[in-house]
């Protein structure tokens, strides 16, 4: 029963991807046609010729993917197929969302408080999130890593840092 739900979810996800790509293809096609019309030049010279071809390909490939989904759904009904949902490992969405949020905060904090302090705060948060509980190690790595990276990249290799 649980396996069947997984299979159905897999087919549903694939179907969403088909719709997403055909939508993107149609969007790109409309964009290319609209801007080409405004440019008022021949197609052979148009900067929108290649994007138009890409959009056509994308739509065709989305249809191809749809055919694959159809095949998958058929296999599901005979219980022979395996879907992505079954194959892919389980995702820890909560941990992933927190990680992404921290990265985004880190991104915005960098120009405001500088590379060293934002790096320290980000590393402390991430080490803690990923399960490190030894305070001395967190402190050592969170202070040491940005300093070492600053020394190596900025001072030694003359690479600009955020």
């Amino acid at each position, binding site marked *: 029963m649980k396996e069947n739900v997984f299979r159905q979810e897999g087919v549903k*996800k694939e179907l969403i*991807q088909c719709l997403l*790509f055909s939508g*993107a293809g149609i969007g*790109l096609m409309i*964009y290319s046609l609209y801007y080409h019309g405004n*440019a008022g030049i021949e197609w*052979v*010279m*148009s*900067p*929108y*010729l*290649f*994007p138009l071809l*890409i*959009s056509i*390909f*994308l739509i065709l*490939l*989305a249809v*191809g*993917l749809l*055919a*694959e989904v159809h095949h998958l759904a058929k296999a599901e009904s005979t219980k022979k197929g395996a879907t992505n949902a079954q194959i*892919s*490992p*389980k*995702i*820890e*969405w909560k*941990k*992933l969302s927190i*990680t*992404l949020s921290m*990265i985004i905060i*880190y*991104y915005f904090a*960098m*120009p405001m408080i500088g590379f060293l302090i934002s*790096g320290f705060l*980000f*590393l402390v948060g*991430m*080490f803690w999130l*990923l*399960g*490190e509980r030894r305070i001395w*190690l967190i402190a050592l*790595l969170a202070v040491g*890593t*940005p300093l070492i*990276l600053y020394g190596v*990249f900025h001072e030694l*290799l*003359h*690479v*600009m*840092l*955020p």
Partner: protein
Amino acid sequence: MGILEVFSYFLNPQFILIVFFGALTGLMVGAIPGLSVTMATALLVSVTYTWQTSNALAMIMGVYVVGVFSGAISAILINIPGAPASVVTTLDGYPLAKQGRAYTALKYATVYSFVGSIFSFILLWAMARPISAIALKFTPMDYFLLALFGLTTVGSLTAKSFAKGLISATVGLAVSMIGMDSVMGTPRLTLGISDLKSGVAIVPVLVGLFGMAEVLTVIAEGGVDGQILKIEKEVIKMKDILKHVFKSLYYCTLGTLIGALPGAGGPVASFIAYSQATKLEKNPSVPFGEGAVEGIVASESANNAVIGGALIPLLTLAIPGDAVTAIILSVFYVHGLQPGPMFIKTNPAMFSAILAGGLLACIFLLFLGLVVAPRISKLIAVPKKILLPIVVVLCVIGSFAGNNRMFDVLLMIVFGVIGFFMRRYGYSIASMTLAIVLGGMMDANFRRAVSLAASEDDKLMALFGRPISLILLVLTVITIAMNIPAVKKMLQKIKRA
């Protein structure tokens, strides 16, 4: 370009030192699961941005050659391949290590990775000129078709589904269209964002797709840390190791040829070589899959031989053979170099630097593999909870350093998320990378070809009438047709009948 020019680099201490640092970096990133050669190379593009081109290439060759090998270390010691090319090495490497013979497995992996790398660089040296001569006859349409053929083969080999492989490539092409059009100077697909007018910078995209996406994947999937096996030193006679050398040359040839095919790369090469070894070796030391050194020989010879093979189309046709060479192509562009048929003639020093860097890296591979690899088992065990946050900071530095723009860091994060979902749903990142790198060239050549054909009476003949164009077109159509499920089914039926 003579042999002396290549070997002159062997007398340059700075060059040697840079290759050595690259090799050392390659050893670490290849051996530690969660870090990859592609990720390291992508990060290096921005670090080496201000360096002399020869030094940048030296560093990258060191990372590339040793990084491909060192994936075998974790494959043997913890049964987790450090690089995708080492997946096959786990089949016999880990069972051999479990028998208490990890040292033997590492020694075989080192020696035959060295043989594979050296073989492929010699072939690169020998083949680059003749292929460049052929490439000189290529028209814009031929270049377009060659890139298209490359993308279709990458799509067919790197994704679980052919449609998904090609969708990745097509989306990559669309991304490469963003920015100012090179022919008319018109901004395309910028969505009114002024930072996108100069196009999507390749380095942040690569760092995002390979570095950030890897971090997000490992965190989301809760990465598994394997148990490390003990290494006890054994006395192994070199005579015993070298008795497989002739067969390994066959695996090397396979590896180099597969490497030259865009997209196939190390995993395919090592898998094919391994399956050949199971047929060729009638009496392996122990059955395959139970610790046969013959399996390690096949896998490691072939996956390292891919390196030189992948560089052949890159240098002569500007078509990368795999993800790492796609990044190397961006190094060329960043440093104002244009690979292609004229590259060896116009930039003999750079070609020599690549060969010298590669050959020196082979020597360091042998040294590091025999001396350092057995001693770094503790380093492989760096917990991911420590490693991953540091990788994120490195990704930020890597994406920022190229243009000194915070927008590129944002771009890296966005492509990291895209890369995560692509991995999750079976879309090929390699296809997308290749398409992003090749998109501009494909667009320019396609429009040039169409413009030239527009003035001809027989437009179709003008576009596809030449033998090279025709061959490339047929190859592309065959690749696409052979991957259509209905055609596949029909062929299977015919085979059975």
